[in-house]
């Protein structure tokens, strides 16, 4: 169940260009948080900016009650958030989302992420690895400067493949090509993805071709995060022009079976 707390920022770390990792004391949240869920942050007590910022959970340290999230400074909300100092309190609503990643029925996980979409995949890989799953991770970035969290992902995987679009670091090309090869070699029985929409579409298509179960984490503009405003709609696969059908990222998601949604 979500709670609304003022969580103390205990560590702040720059992990990439304009990308910050925040560790906060949030036992009330870590007690119930599941991999794939997200939080919403109110960056100040003012009415400007008006809405909370939805941010995915990077790491849940249940033992110490510490929650970690990473965000990129993109607009005025994240700009204000980036100015918080260690010791400051942050207004957090969470954990949110009723559809977490579900990996227990699988053994050979293929986890694929792109750009800032890699953040929620760390907790997934960490949890799965701790349950002795075979964890294969494929992460794509635009270029060398944007490659983040390599050591962290290495520590929670059996195999880690990093790609850059321009070849300025690691393998040149797209992460999905390496995932595809491993699927063809019989090394993968399930796919978990988060990243830009074109990547998710390609992953969904690949999963359908290879008949492999696939879960994707989606985002959509949202307001409440609680399931009341009905803003963050996602079209379902059953939806037609005459009979449109929508689910909501904050309610049915943010993780969906790829086959169930029309992206």
């Amino acid at each position, binding site marked *: *169940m*979500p*709670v*609304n707390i003022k969580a103390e920022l205990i560590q702040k770390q720059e992990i990439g260009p304009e990308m910050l990792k925040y560790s906060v004391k949030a036992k009330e949240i870590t007690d119930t948080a599941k991999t794939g869920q997200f939080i919403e942050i*109110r960056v100040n007590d003012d*009415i*400007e*900016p*008006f*809405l*909370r910022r939805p941010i995915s959970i990077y790491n849940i340290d249940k033992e110490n009650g510490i929650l970690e999230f990473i965000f990129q400074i993109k607009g005025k909300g994240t700009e204000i958030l980036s100015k918080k100092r260690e010791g400051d309190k942050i*207004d957090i*609503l969470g954990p949110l989302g009723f559809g977490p990643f579900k990996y227990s029925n699988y053994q050979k996980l293929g986890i694929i992420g792109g750009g800032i979409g890699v953040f929620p995949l760390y907790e997934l890989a960490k949890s799965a690895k701790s349950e002795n799953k075979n964890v294969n991770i494929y992460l794509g970035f635009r270029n060398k400067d944007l490659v983040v969290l390599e050591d962290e992902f290495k520590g929670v995987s059996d195999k880690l493949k990093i790609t850059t679009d321009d070849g300025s670091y690691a393998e040149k090309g797209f992460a999905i090509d390496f995932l595809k090869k491993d699927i063809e070699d019989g090394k993968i029985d399930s796919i978990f993805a988060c990243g830009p929409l074109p990547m998710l579409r390609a992953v969904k298509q690949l999963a359908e071709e290879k008949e492999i179960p696939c879960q994707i984490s989606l985002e*959509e*503009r*949202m*307001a*409440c995060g*609680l*399931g*009341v*405003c*009905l*803003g*963050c*709609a*996602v*079209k379902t696969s059953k939806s037609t022009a005459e*009979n*449109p*059908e*929508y689910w909501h990222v904050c309610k049915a998601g943010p993780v969906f079976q790829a086959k169930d949604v029309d992206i």
Partner: protein
Amino acid sequence: MNTKINFAGIEMKNPVTVASGTFGYGREFSNFFDLSKLGGIITKGTSLKPKSGNKPPRVCETASGMLNSIGLQNPGVEYFAENDLPFLRKFDTAIIVNVCGSTIDEYVELCKILNTLDIDGVELNLSCPNVKAGCMAFGNTYEGVKEVTSKVRKVIEKPLIVKLTPNVTNITEIAKAVEDAGADGVSLINTLLGMKIDINKRKPVLANNTGGLSGPAIKPVAVRMVYQVAQAVKIPILGMGGIVNGEDAIEFMLAGASAISIGAGNFISPTTSIDTIAQIEDYMRKNNIEDIHEIIGKVEMN
């Protein structure tokens, strides 16, 4: 100290309600506080048949507010009666059902069903800017408002409140239509029609192109309209539009609202509504106000 009011025949323990479409059917907020603390709950706009709503993106942030174009997505009155109403009835608060239809017959049909349900009142939505048929199409002329309200008045046996759109030239004329048609109260304002453009894509951000603006950005417009309507009609006013705290609520009541609704404010903090109740009580204490009625309409114009 008395905060109880009787709004349009509906008993409320305080003047704070939550606005339609910002509180669902209450379940999600019941995790954060006891819903019995509220004066009333106005449900998500409910139609005769389920509605799937508009394409996403449906919401976006704007300066001190937000735009939405949800398109009245709701499960329909039957589902509401079976699943949501029994839940809401567990709490000691007024339940007012917001209703929307695309034809007059639909409003009438819906109200016949509502007569059979254990609810405290009906808020007739003549003001949603995000659907093609009905709603605002009826809500922006004196004749349109009077016709729907009169026909609904004939069938509905519950207190009837009509929610007005601010997207009109003369709000007092529309409010008079509500009064002339025999409604018990009027609520205002619904959202202001707005648009936001993504300058990189050169396209509106919302899939529906336009949406309804809400939040503190619209508050001065709402306060002005509440004041004007209070001068023009005798039926009580449920005031709303950008209220996020007790000070805002008092402002609306001084302008002439007998009760208020928290709308988009519910999105910034799940406890905005009950915090507002506490802040109203603080204001009353500090200003030696014994009874909440003492402030209704008590603005002194320059």
